[in-house]
């Protein structure tokens, strides 16, 4: 033992068992709420003393605008924080918690920043994009809060790899069983083997619509085929029907898994591009404000 004299490393361990929404007893929810309350109070305090509500160009508007823009940039940094694995202590959960609540608080902050002045211009575009980002984020909160149970309930202890392996092994069985079949029977098996699509486009995965799944069609066709006179062939047909049903079950499981995963990811397809659009619009908004001052 080389570490003697009380120098043993005491590292921070995240041992508490709290989700990102309840992180540290809703710390960021409280901070965000407080921020909103303060901002609302100041706004109406100021608004009561002047004729027009404070616009983005007023001193209060500038303060709100600066805070909001800073928040937006910081919120967008979550994507970097998530991917840069540094050695020091940070908690991505804490970041996500802050991201969620501070992001929601932007609804108040940025709306007050606008002074309720909207029009067909880049300023309102930035605002609209921000609201789109927040709305998609809210969808994300819903997804993260409700879907994990379904995701894991669906798969049980089966991993993705095991599902693929199961399909492979069922296909292999189908292939071997089809050897004694006649041409018509072999065609049906080939349909299941060669034309079954596991996933498909994102939209397909999300909706889970595999109406004309080749395996299902093959199973239907198989059942319409006449029972062969040869007992070996008849036995093979029976077994094939069972294996195809098993395959249908595994396909269903894997597709439901992909559907839930797609739902967990789907909102990001709006959230992320909208964020980049927002950053661009925000830049245009700030540049134009200062250029045409």
């Amino acid at each position, binding site marked *: 033992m080389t570490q003697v004299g009380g120098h043993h490393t005491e590292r921070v361990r*995240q041992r508490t*068992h709290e989700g990102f929404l309840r992180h540290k007893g809703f710390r960021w929810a409280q901070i965000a709420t407080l921020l909103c309350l303060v901002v609302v109070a100041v706004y109406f305090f100021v608004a009561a003393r002047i004729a027009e509500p404070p616009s983005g160009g007023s001193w209060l508007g500038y303060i709100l605008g600066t805070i909001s823009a800073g928040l937006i940039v910081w919120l967008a940094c979550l994507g970097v924080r998530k991917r840069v694995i540094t*050695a020091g202590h940070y908690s*991505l959960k804490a970041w996500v918690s802050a991201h969620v609540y501070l992001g929601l608080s932007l609804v108040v902050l940025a709306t007050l920043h606008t002074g309720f002045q909207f029009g067909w211009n880049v300023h309102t575009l930035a605002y609209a994009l921000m609201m789109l980002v927040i709305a998609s984020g809210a969808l994300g909160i819903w997804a993260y809060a409700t879907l994990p149970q379904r995701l894991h309930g669906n798969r049980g202890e089966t991993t993705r790899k095991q599902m693929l392996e199961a399909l492979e092994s069922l296909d292999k069985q189908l292939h071997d069983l089809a050897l004694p079949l006649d041409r018509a029977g072999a065609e049906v098996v080939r349909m299941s083997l060669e034309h079954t699509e596991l996933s498909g486009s994102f939209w397909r995965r999300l909706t889970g619509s595999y109406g004309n799944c080749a395996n299902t069609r093959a199973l239907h066709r198989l059942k319409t085929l006449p029972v062969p006179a040869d007992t070996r062939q008849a036995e093979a047909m029976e077994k094939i029907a069972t294996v195809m049903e098993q395959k249908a079950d595994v396909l269903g499981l894997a597709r439901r898994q992909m559907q839930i995963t797609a739902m967990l990811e789907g909102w990001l397809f709006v959230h992320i591009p909208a964020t980049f659009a927002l950053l661009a619009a925000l830049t245009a908004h700030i540049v134009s404000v200062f250029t045409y001052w």
Partner: protein
Amino acid sequence: MSEVFKIAIIGSGPAGMSAAAHAAQKGISHVLLEKTDHLSDTIFRYQKGKHVMATPAVLVLRSDCEFDAGKREKILDQWNADVKAAGVNVRFKAEAKAITGDKGDFTIELTKGEPIRCENIVLAIGTQGNPNLMRCDGAALPHVQYQLDDPGEYTDEHIFVVGSGDAGIENALGLAADAAQGNTVTILNRSADFARAKKANVDNLMAARDAGRMTIMTETSPSLVEPGWITVETPQGSSRYKCDRIIARMGASPPRKFVEAAGLAFASDSPSAFPTLTPTFESSTKPGIYVIGALAGYPLIKHCMNQGYDVVEFISGTTDLEPADEPLLKEKLQGLPGRRSVSEWLEFLRSRVEILNGLSPLQMREFLLDSEVKAYKADEAIFIRNDQGSSLFGIADGSVKVEVDPSNPNITVPIGEGSIFGEVGLISGRKRGATIRAAEPTICIEIPRMAALKLMAQVPEARDTVNRITSERQVLQIFKSGLTPADISEVLATAEVMEIRPGQAIINEGDVSDDLYIIRSGSMIVEKNLGGKPVFMSYVPAGSYSGEMAMIERAPRVATVKAAIRSTVVKLPADPFRRLLARKPELAKRMYDEMKARREINAFIEEQKEEFGGAVDMYSSVANFLIKQGIGEATDVLLIDESLCVGCDNCEKACADSHDGLSRLNREAGTTFANIHVPTSCRHCEHPHCMSDCPPNAIRRGPDGEVFISDTCIGCGNCQRACPYGVIQMDKPPPPKPKLWEWMLFGKGPGPGQPDYEWRKKAAKSGAGAESPKLAIKCDMCSGKAGGPACVRACPTGAAIRVSPDAFLSVARIEKGAG
């Protein structure tokens, strides 16, 4: 009359070959006997292209044969060339059957051909070349084989694989893998389950059976082998099957019978014991026979080759040969007070530290290579309470003081010269229980866990001493209260050390018994029957006691206490202990208070059970599930709350990105119960299975309790096979990835996380990477990273948590569940 050789060397592995080469170089008449038709059968049997490593790196190679890390083929070619160049007199297919005679006139009988006569014998037969053989009639028929080099060789055969270990299963799977080969494969297992094999292998085996590719016969053993047929004994009786080939994989063991028949004595009856030897490798009971290499307890190639050189020097009369490890020891011992030479130090330590008394100078030398000797100033801390550490200390000079009361460092208990300390950490694997400081200028030898266990296996007196001291200290440490060894001598006199199987109860609810139990290693769970169902009450880790209620109150047992994993307990009879309590009111009060606290917890659970039965059932079943997953032997385990996990795999990516691009955890794999998922990831067991057989001793426990593999790993895969949880993988680091910003901005490289196989292959091809071997890889709990484990830090939703079992299996779970 045949020639009488000066030296006959049996076994042509690295040790024997090196000895023969040196004898040839010195012009000594010699013969090298090899059982097979090629040199170094153990290395020869390595799979094709395996990278062989040369450790310990600091050790200088002293041999007439070359050896450097590299591919198996390259090394074997090199050795063949060296042996030829040296002019070694090698005899292939010469298997020694018996050794008779004495120094100066030995006769080695061979299974085939003329006996060999010689003056001295060097035994370098290792331990691998002796597979356990089938013992039924007909087992000697040529279609019974003990090795399978290429499963693709055999087609359309009825093959029986005998053996339920990994080797047997892998062979059976290999033979049945390709249906086109047309083999009919059956695996025979003497017992009912495949307990010795890795889970993955067993799963594959079951899958192969379910797919109809092979047959598994359990509780079955072969009883008769005939050409073309095998007869097996099944629980239903015996049956005869068609059989063209039998592959027997039933393990290997040191050829103890052969060695003992030659007149050599072993250090103990333990299967891991080695022959007793003098400093010149000569048997202490049979002069003229020298033992080197793995059979002498040195499994590493470099050690073996050096010993081959040394032993020939010794036989030819050199007495002042400086051992090859002398510079290492010199370096280790320099800076210590006293100006002793290496051999003086060895003798100093050996004679003064009680547990080392039984070692030979040769063992002592080897032992010191693994250990550290350190001088401490008065009052200097040797270790601090709650430090992680599993090493054992021996006091060679001076004395130390133990701070028995954490709140008052002035209360100390002395330990004197020749004694040991740190043994509780060694045996229980838990944190240090007390701070120990040097009482005066002191010299201690620190013995790492593996070396200490080896010592205890080799030297029975050392084992007894450690056990005796351990019981005494553990009792003192658990009950504290100012007890002295004299106070507890009566209790210890009748104490009994017991080994408990997993699931075995030491205390049964309702029984009338009143002994007290101390958990020395392993852990216990306490269950109580509530409403007809056993309900989990608490978890008792090693270093605690159980059974005090019945002892103090003389009432029947209120709960059942059973082992969560294989455990060792010390049973302290009630009567002497009650007398001790009567003498020591402070101890009585302490135990009474603790009992009250335990009773409150039990009462709380019982009360909750009535009101919130569901929450208690959940708590109980979650606890049982986790215990079943081996959490009982874990010290720190990664759990995933599936109600929070979104499946983003950021934990795996973070793991890969903080460890050379390889993830040490598989989130998706593993078992789940009630939202708690135990992913495939290291639990840092108290007594890590992986440590049990690591030739370079590369697996250690770090300062934060993490079990890690150091860079002296030689990639042998022993740890991977030993781990029952499948958390160790053999892999090599992927080529470096482009920087993260390059990926973010330009999409260069595979992005965060472990790069996929295709990318690695492509990148390895384009980059001029040096050949890097596959090494064992496992979680090191992000050792050395200030922020702690990356998997937990990088979880966006808080699903990933790391817990220790005693913290996690607490009643707090019920309060949460019920509230």
